[in-house]
C-alpha cells in the first residue's frame, strides 16, 4: 500500500512484528502498510517542525503506543493464523464428497448399532432416532451444501453454528443414552470439547463481520 521506506526505523519493524503476531498474512499486510504509512506521515510532520530525523522517529513510535496492547486489539478483530487454518479444515471437511459419503456410511453403521443396543435394553427409540438423524444426517448435509457455496462465499459463522448444534445434539444424545443405558459418558466428554473452540470463534466472527478479507488466498479449496 505504501511506497514509503523507513530504512532507519528498525524499531517500527519490531513494533509491527509484535502488533501483528499470530495474525494471517493478509491481515498482517494490511496493518503493516497502514501503520507504516501513518509512521511516515508522523515522522514527516515532526521533521517539518524542526525535529531531527531520529528524534522524529522516536516520537512517532512513542505516539503509536504499546505494541502488545495493539496486538491484543488486533487479535480480537482480525483472524489469527490458527483460526484461519481451522476454518480451512472445517470447510474441507464439511464440503468433501468422499468424506460425506463415508460419513453417511459410518452414521448408518452407528445407527444400526444404536438401535440394536436400544432393543436389547427395551428403551423407546423415537427420541434417539430424531436426535440421531439430526446429528448424523441433517446437520452434516446442510453443512455440506453451505461449505460448497462459491458465490457468495460460504457463511463461516453459519457453518460454525451448525457445528455447535451438531455438538449439542450429540451431547443430548449421549446424555440420554447415559441415563438409559449407563454408557457413553466417555463419548460425551470427548465429543463435547469442540464447543469450547467453536463458541468463542462464532462470537468473534459476529464482531468482525466477514472473514474472507483475512483468509489467505488459494487455500479456500473445497475437495
Amino acid at each position, binding site marked *: 500500500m505504501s511506497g514509503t521506506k523507513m530504512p532507519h526505523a528498525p524499531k517500527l519493524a519490531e513494533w509491527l512484528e509484535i502488533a501483528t503476531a499470530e495474525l494471517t498474512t493478509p491481515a498482517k499486510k494490511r496493518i503493516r502498510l497502514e501503520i507504516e*504509512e501513518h509512521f511516515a506521515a508522523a515522522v514527516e510532520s515532526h521533521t517539518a517542525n524542526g525535529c531531527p530525523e531520529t528524534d522524529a522517529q522516536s516520537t512517532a513510535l512513542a505516539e503509536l*503506543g504499546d505494541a502488545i496492547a495493539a496486538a491484543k486489539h488486533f487479535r480480537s478483530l482480525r483472524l489469527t493464523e490458527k483460526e484461519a487454518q481451522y476454518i480451512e479444515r472445517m470447510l474441507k471437511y464439511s464440503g468433501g464428497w468422499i468424506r460425506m459419503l463415508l460419513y453417511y456410511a459410518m452414521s448408518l453403521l452407528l445407527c444400526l448399532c444404536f438401535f440394536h443396543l436400544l432393543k436389547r435394553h427395551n428403551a423407546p427409540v423415537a427420541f434417539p432416532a430424531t436426535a440421531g438423524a439430526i446429528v448424523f444426517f441433517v446437520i452434516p448435509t446442510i453443512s455440506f451444501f453451505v461449505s460448497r457455496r462459491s458465490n457468495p462465499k460460504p457463511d463461516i459463522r453459519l457453518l460454525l453454528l451448525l457445528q455447535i448444534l451438531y455438538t449439542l445434539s450429540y451431547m443430548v444424545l449421549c446424555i440420554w443414552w447415559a441415563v438409559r443405558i449407563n454408557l457413553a459418558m466417555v463419548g460425551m466428554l470427548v465429543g463435547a470439547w469442540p464447543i469450547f473452540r467453536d463458541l468463542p470463534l462464532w462470537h468473534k466472527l459476529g464482531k468482525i463481520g466477514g472473514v474472507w478479507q483475512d483468509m489467505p488466498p488459494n487455500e479456500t479449496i473445497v475437495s
Partner: protein
Amino acid sequence: MYSVSVNIKGGLPALILQNLSRGPNHGYRIAQEIKQKSKGVLDFKEGTLYPSLHGLEGKGLLVSHTRDENGRTRCYYELTEKGKQALAAEKQEWHRFSSAFNLILQEAT
C-alpha cells in the same frame, strides 16, 4: 494543577464516526484532527486507532479504499449509511449521558 487523565477508549469509535461524517479521511489525519479539535485533551495512542477503524469497518459502519497521493498509497475510510445512523444514535446517547452528568455536577453545594 489538578489533572484528569481522559480515557477515551470507549468513545474513540464515536469520535472517528464524527470525523468521517465530514468526508473520507485516512488514519493519520483522523488522529491529528481529533487531537487538534479537542486541543490535546482527547489524547490517545495512535496504534489503537487502527483496531477501532477495522472494528467499525467489520460492523459495516465504514468502508475503506486506497488512493495514490504523491507516490504514496493511502487507505481512506468513508462513512456508510449504517455508519451515519450509528453516529446519530451515538450523539443522542452522548447528549443524554452528558445532560445527566451535568445535572449532578452543577448541583448547588
